[in-house]
């Protein structure tokens, strides 16, 4: 009787584990971009901000977007599952007739090492080259603790001027934490 109960509990547990693991397989893709604070140059009027909110807000996966004119900033929150790329955001700003400058963003992805470069690769294939923060010498924001193939969430800053034709976005690390 005792053995039968142990077997039953073990099999039920195994089944539960399998079900949970299987369920995980069918979960939607993880968020890649999670938050973006984007500085925009050239936006002077309320309809400009309205159009920008409409344009970014209409992207599938964007949860909320708020544009403040006096700061020239778009604050974008993305849903847990989204396929929005940073390039999409910059394209929307450029199509609006304005210029995307520096940004602070939070992105989830896998760490890759290519030579001496650390790359954060998002599920959509967008790649960010990680740069150490200016405070790296004090510990946080350095590259020394990074390990390849780890799932991480990186908070960092995109510089104000960059070559938009580059396939890799430079991202100066502010914080790295494990995604698991």
């Amino acid at each position: 009787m005792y053995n039968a109960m142990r077997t039953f509990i073990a099999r039920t547990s195994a089944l539960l584990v399998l079900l949970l693991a299987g369920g995980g397989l069918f979960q939607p893709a993880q968020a890649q971009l999670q938050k973006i604070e984007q500085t925009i140059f050239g936006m002077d009027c309320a309809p400009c901000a309205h159009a920008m909110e409409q344009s970014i807000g209409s992207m599938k996966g964007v949860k909320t977007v708020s544009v403040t004119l006096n700061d020239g900033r778009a604050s974008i929150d993305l849903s847990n599952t989204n396929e929005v790329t940073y390039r999409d955001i910059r394209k929307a700003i450029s199509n609006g007739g304005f210029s995307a400058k520096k940004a602070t963003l939070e992105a989830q992805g896998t760490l890759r090492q290519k030579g001496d470069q650390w790359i954060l690769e998002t599920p959509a294939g967008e790649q960010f080259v990680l740069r150490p923060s200016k405070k790296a010498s004090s510990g946080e924001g350095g590259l020394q603790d990074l390990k390849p193939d780890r799932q991480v969430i990186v908070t960092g800053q995109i510089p104000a001027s960059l070559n938009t034709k580059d396939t890799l976005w430079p991202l100066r690390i502010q914080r790295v934490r494990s995604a698991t």
Partner: protein
Amino acid sequence: MTYCLSPVHLKSVCVAAGLLWLSFVPPAMGQGGHGPAFGLATPTLPQGGWNYNSTLMSVGTGERSLMTRQSLWYGLTEHLQLNASVPVTLRSTPSPPTTRGGTMMGGLSSLEVSTYWRFHRQYLGVGKRFESTLLVGGLYPTRDYGRERRSGPGVHLAAVTGYASRSVYAWAGGGYQHYTARDGDRPGDLRYGSLVLGWRPAYFRRGSTPDWRLFVEALGESVGPERRDGSAVTGSGGEKLFVGPTTLGLYGAWGLSAGVLIPMYQDVPRVQEEDLRLMFNFTYWF
């Protein structure tokens, strides 16, 4: 040929239809962007964006001409816009002045299709732009420009450069309008220059308040001699200089602008003299 409606009735029907249109479709932005009512500016519209304007304008002295113009703007790209506008004359005078309702609004009583190319832009900071736009338009007269005198199609060319920011605006530009002759008749060529200075008071720069701004606009016009039966009409044409205040209020996707131009100098035939130009404009961005 017989008409079901007399011209007076037709006009009433057009006005009623226009009002009905306005009641259902939110009206849109005058100069397609920043809001001077009469002068040239550098309109902005996102790629794929639409913008609708409904304008009421009046020119003349004493018995004034009165017309509405419905305009639709489309952003082909963020730097290239298309505009089509349709005039409806509500009241005309025997010799309306040779002008444009607003420099970017179309010739009086002409259908107009225009292209705006923002060929230069510099993003100088948060809310700041320095940019320049070229404007090319085709005009098709819908009625006589004077008593029983109608011209052929026309063209309008203009260029404008300006600065926009959260606090101040400034634009300077100039244009040229020419109609081809029909049976030897056409109005004189119009050359004009405009200067616009704008200011948005600090109170209206807050996100929680409507976005109002004030402008002072100056418009100088030089009209060449009118031609009748292929010959220049002696004493026709002349010069005018106007200055006046205008305002633009924006809230979300809506805009309302209004303005007055007062003549400072006029050297034209007496019938073409003006005492005031008036404009009201509603705007909506889709």
